[in-house]
């Protein structure tokens, strides 16, 4: 009996020692902070993964592939595996899933909003400050085998968007903004002239005029039975930019939610009024703005400058049949403004982050590849696939890029005029761009801001009453649906805050059970021994 108890106790103690190590392998052990290695050991092999997003554009895929091939030619021991996405949301979901299993990619295209959530796991994303300026391997470092930009050559506004809690957790890869793509032919047919800077009053007035039909339901401006005068692709951006232009609350930098205010309500009532007259709709409700514009069924289409290749009669990319295309003159303007003297527009576009790993040299290898994405060759090539702009002054000022801009309209492919006009729009307005504060939960706030416009638009179309009571309920519903009342307002980063973690994982339950059983048996063993001794 004594031997059996001893064996069981020994076994359970062994289990208690081994199990934590096994459990640790599966992700619950916290990664150590990244420490910059002295050297990158290039005598060994590195396997890194790169999760990239493209706009369903084969040219972008090719540029990623070429970047990998060119990088591997310089660093043959660093093997980069590409995984392609066409949706930021899917990358975000997959990263969240893979944080738990410690299988995040090494390098990832992302949005700073998303990084704020990734960072709720400790030491998951590598802060880049030290890497940026490292003498050997930093931007423009002495050991870097390619011509990378210096930190000062990254456009400051774009780089500043990647700061979280005072540190750089990403760097910009491409930047875009939104543009209003206009059927100038229809605007003039309606008796208006397209101004250099659009105002909201102008766009609403012309949209109302374009919504006029004859007795047979045929729209006067296009002679068709379909007309969506004004379509907005991203209603998140619509609300965010309108609030910014009005100087109204959205959120504070540390995550206090301010969006449920009187200005928001006023804007929603205005939008509702124009929906009622069939002057306004959204991508989510009706379809891609560019498709309606190209079919002569829309006057104002607001979409990303990174969607410019889909817009216009001669757009290189098209989703509608040839016979549906209508000939018209397209002009590109910044989004409408409340104060045309002080135009304001959002800055958006992909950024790049580097994930932490147990091996700091693997992280360094990842950083080198990430840095390669900032070379002129990658920057200029990728920016030309859409209405993106390069994020470095080194690329923007290069002869090659300046030549590209100067050849606007030379063909309907590389030099497609709408695309280059869209890029020029951002280059001319970089100083007028802004980004929203980033914190854990800022993704939900962004979703809620657009959802309010979608809900109001649907409700009006469904002939529901949109009044004060509706707005109060809408605010309450958004707060609840997006859990905007469950955020800490004490700090942007909630990594240290208590959160609901759900049920314990099975491995943890097993471990705790084993520990409890071991203690019971140890006490039993000691107790039996004590009793036996006492009897003697």
């Amino acid at each position, binding site marked *: 009996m004594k031997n059996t108890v001893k064996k069981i106790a020994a076994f359970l103690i062994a289990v208690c020692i081994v199990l934590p190590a096994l459990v640790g392998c599966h992700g619950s052990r916290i990664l150590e902070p990244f420490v910059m290695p002295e050297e990158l050991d290039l005598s060994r092999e590195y396997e890194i993964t790169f999760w990239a997003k493209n706009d369903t554009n084969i040219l972008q895929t090719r540029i990623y592939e070429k970047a990998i091939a060119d990088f591997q030619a310089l660093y043959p021991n660093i093997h980069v595996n590409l995984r392609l996405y066409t949706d930021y949301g899917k990358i975000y*979901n997959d990263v969240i899933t893979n944080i738990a299993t410690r299988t995040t990619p090494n390098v990832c295209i992302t949005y700073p909003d998303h990084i704020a959530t990734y960072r709720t796991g400790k030491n998951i994303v590598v802060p880049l400050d030290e890497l940026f300026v490292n003498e050997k391997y930093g931007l423009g470092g002495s050991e870097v085998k390619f011509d990378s930009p210096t930190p000062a050559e990254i456009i400051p506004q774009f780089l500043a968007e990647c700061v979280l809690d005072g540190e750089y957790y990403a760097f910009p890869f491409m930047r875009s903004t939104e543009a209003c793509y206009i059927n100038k032919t229809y605007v003039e047919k309606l008796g208006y002239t397209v101004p250099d800077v659009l105002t909201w009053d102008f766009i609403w007035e012309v949209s109302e005029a374009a919504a006029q039909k004859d007795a047979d339901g045929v729209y006067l401006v296009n002679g068709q039975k379909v007309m969506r005068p004004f379509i907005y692709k991203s209603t998140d951006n619509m609300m965010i930019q309108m609030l910014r232009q009005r100087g109204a609350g959205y959120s504070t930098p540390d995550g206090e939610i301010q969006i449920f205010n009187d200005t928001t309500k006023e804007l929603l009532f205005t939008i509702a009024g124009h929906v009622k007259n069939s002057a306004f709709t959204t991508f989510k*409700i009706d379809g891609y703005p560019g498709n309606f514009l190209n079919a002569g069924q829309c006057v104002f289409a607001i979409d990303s400058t990174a969607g410019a290749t889909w817009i216009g009669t001669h757009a290189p990319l098209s989703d509608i049949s040839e016979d549906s295309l209508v000939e018209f003159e397209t002009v590109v303007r910044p989004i409408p403004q409340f104060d045309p003297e002080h135009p304001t527009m959002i800055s958006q576009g992909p950024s790049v982050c580097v994930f932490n790993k147990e091996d700091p040299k693997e992280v360094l290898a990842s950083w080198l590849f990430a840095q390669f994405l900032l070379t002129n060759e990658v920057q200029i090539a990728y920016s030309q696939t859409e209405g993106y702009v390069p994020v470095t002054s080194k690329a923007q000022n290069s002869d090659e890029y300046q030549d590209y801009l100067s050849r606007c309209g030379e063909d309907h492919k590389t030099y497609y005029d709408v695309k280059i006009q869209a890029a020029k729009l951002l280059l001319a307005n970089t100083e007028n761009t802004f980004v929203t504060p980033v914190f854990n939960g800022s993704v939900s706030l962004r979703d809620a801001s657009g959802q309010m416009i979608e809900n109001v638009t649907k409700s009006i179309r469904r002939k529901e009453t949109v009044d004060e009571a509706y707005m109060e309920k809408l605010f309450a519903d958004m707060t609840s649906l997006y859990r905007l009342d469950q955020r800490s307002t004490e700090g942007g980063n909630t990594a240290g805050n208590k959160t609901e973690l759900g049920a314990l994982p099975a491995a943890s339950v097993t471990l705790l059970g084993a520990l409890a059983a071991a203690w019971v048996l140890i006490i039993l063993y000691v107790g039996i021994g004590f009793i036996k001794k006492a009897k003697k």
Partner: protein
Amino acid sequence: MKRILALVMVFVLALSLAACNTEKTGDGKDPKSEGVMTYAEYAAAELETPVVIEAFVQAKQAWYEPAATTSIYAQDADGAYFMYRIACSAEDYAKLVPGTKIKVTGHKAAWSGEVEIVDATFEIIEGSTFVAEPLDVTAMLADEKVIEHQNKLVAFKGMTVEATKDADGNDVAFLYNYDGSGEEGSDLYFTVSVNGASYSFTVESDLCGVDSDVYKAVKNLKIGDKIDMEGFLYWYNGVNPHITSVTPAK
């Protein structure tokens, strides 16, 4: 005793077979419950109005976890319905096998020409089942009236795989994504022709993933192959069927 037991077993087996047969022979003509639209009433309903329908699940797309939604292709004897991102728990999702009868409450909408039910909820109705026979619409493809069969399970017979240009201008039989920008797991696009007209067909990866027979079959297509297909008559600025089966033409 043994004989009685054997008889009972035979009886139970007979009942089981009868039950199976009942499920297979459903015709989708169940009378609608109170307050439920007929297909004709649904078709006549204005966009953006509330609709309540009963139909039988023919297929479902992947379950979208963050919002707990899926998209469903459903049909009754008179017509077909597409439920876009309908609220669906993981438990209910598992129950949505082809033939399952559901009652759907939502709003009628149209997105790029696809008529669908949005902002919807559903309940499963136990009892009868119905799996539609595919309707051959090959001869109707060029006819505007083909839209009347939108969302139905349909068949295309004897169509020819046409060359699709990839980004380098090469002739290929299919592309990952519409322009080849995707990879394994992306939607597959291929061009097929009949009666001198060409059409773009899709294998929607959310409906038939990489492990499905149709995904593998499309990857093995050669330009010039004559094929029969089945799928759902989805719409995206025109006919854009979501193909679920590809076999050599008979």
